[in-house]
């Protein structure tokens, strides 16, 4: 298992629960939507924290790159957290247009973010952190979330 494989797999898991939340809310099924959204928001936050508290510091200390790609990724996490907060508000207001529009925005933001991680940053991390136990520790954190 490579260092970042658990995070790679967790991206797909987040996609799946995102789709559940979006579908339920766009159909006006707010009860199911609220449950799916809470699960999605929790998993996304756990994913961000695994990167910000474990992967990125390890990568930065191994390579000395503190203001490079990891900083950009942290910035995008902030943007996605803001979008999550907007979705939560739209859910509370039963505003399906607002929820759908923000969900669409978050989806694209999240997908291009994932692509950048999977195609560029994760391979860099795998190469810098090969032979460490970082991957297992991330897998455990995600499994506990």
């Amino acid at each position, binding site marked *: 298992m490579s260092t970042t494989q658990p995070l790679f797999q967790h991206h797909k898991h987040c996609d799946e629960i995102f789709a559940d939340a979006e*579908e339920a809310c766009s159909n006006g099924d707010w009860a199911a939507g609220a449950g799916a959204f809470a699960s999605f928001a929790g998993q996304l936050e756990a994913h961000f924290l695994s990167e910000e508290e474990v992967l990125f510091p390890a990568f930065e200390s191994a390579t000395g790159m503190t203001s*490079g790609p990891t900083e950009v990724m942290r910035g995008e996490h902030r943007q996605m957290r*803001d979008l999550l907060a*907007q979705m939560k508000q739209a859910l509370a207001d039963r505003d399906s247009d607002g929820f759908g*529009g923000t969900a*669409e*925005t978050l989806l694209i933001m999240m997908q291009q973010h994932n692509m950048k991680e999977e*195609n*560029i940053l994760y391979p860099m991390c795998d190469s810098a952190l090969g032979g460490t136990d970082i991957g297992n520790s991330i897998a455990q954190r995600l499994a506990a979330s």
Partner: protein
Amino acid sequence: MHPNLSFEQAPPISVPYRFFLVAPWFGVIAGLLLAWSGGEVLASRWTPESLALVHLIAVGFMLQAMSGALFQFIPVAVGGNVWRPLWISNVVQPLLILGALLLVAGFYLSAPVLLAAAVPALLLGVGIFVSVVLLALWRTPATGMTLWTMRIAVVGLVVTVLLGSLLVEAMSRGLALPIIELTNVHLAWGLGGWALMLVAAVSYFVVPMFQLTNPYPLWFARWFGPLLLAMLLLWSVLWFCDDLRPAQLIGAPLALLCGAFATMTLRLQYTRRRKINDATSLNFRVAMIALLVFAISGAAMAIDPGLADDPRAAVWLGMLAFPGVFVSTISGMMYKITPFLNWLHLQRLGAPISAVPNMKKMIPGDSMTAQFRLHVLAVLLLPAAVWLPSLAEVAGLVFSVSCAWLAWNLTLAMNSYRRFRDQIRASALRC
């Protein structure tokens, strides 16, 4: 140098927009030209009007839209840094527009002097564009089949334009070259080596991303582009052998390979996680169905050349490919790219995310859906008009109105950007 993964590399918003806003107007002209000329011009692919129509879509609509999309796509999807995008697009776009108009006028008026004048404009425009794009695609640290397939596609564009220039030279100077064979090869590289290759490269990235499908299987993404390239090379060489039968026969697996891409994409869409249908996913589905019909028709004609004896058979294929596959794909992509670009550039103005309108506030959903329906009608009428010439006028008009509506929707997107940008700046001043 390590990649910084930032959108700072992405070009100013005016770069992709200028290409997107111009592209549909070539479709408007094409529709009007068909409506004006009538159904008899579709009797063969060699009529001046047919040649003008196909180049209005290929060099006008498609090349504009695909160039604009590449300026945006290369930094965002494959981390490439296109050199001075604003400056390059300032130079390249006028050359491409001029070249397209001269080429179309040259075909329509059967005026070799106009065709010959188009060549330097297109060679220069495409030459500059391809140089910066290939440099960006080669220097990026990214990996993966989107990148490799995109590299092949840009090489496919080079081959297409060089062969097209050679054809124009041959026609305007009366050089003794095998025009029909060269045209077949030019067309195959344009449709397969450039356009479909680019659609495949982009699809590997956006189909799973927009619709939450499974990714294209790795074996498929690894083999599709290189196999398509190899078959195009083989097909190109075989056309110049004394016996034409092998060249015709290789057409069948070539067409089936295109059909395999359509089938794979439709299968992924069918099993997608995200069930929401929007103008992008619907346009993609129409494009892939058109590609499947194109592939079955092409394979049938390759196996039984008697089917292609009627000169209208080639026009039928063209109607499926150009408006059916590529105008649909491009329209779908532009409906997703422009709202996201708006959002991306608005949130970079420094306002809190909550102050930036979401993507669905950029183009009215009803307007996109209505335009999509009209486009589907055009995609049905245009191939039908090949066999029922009396439909050509209405098919041309419907296509023209659909393209004008697309232009209108994209203009609404641009206006939304400007309006929201001014609002954000004004509220920043008040703070």
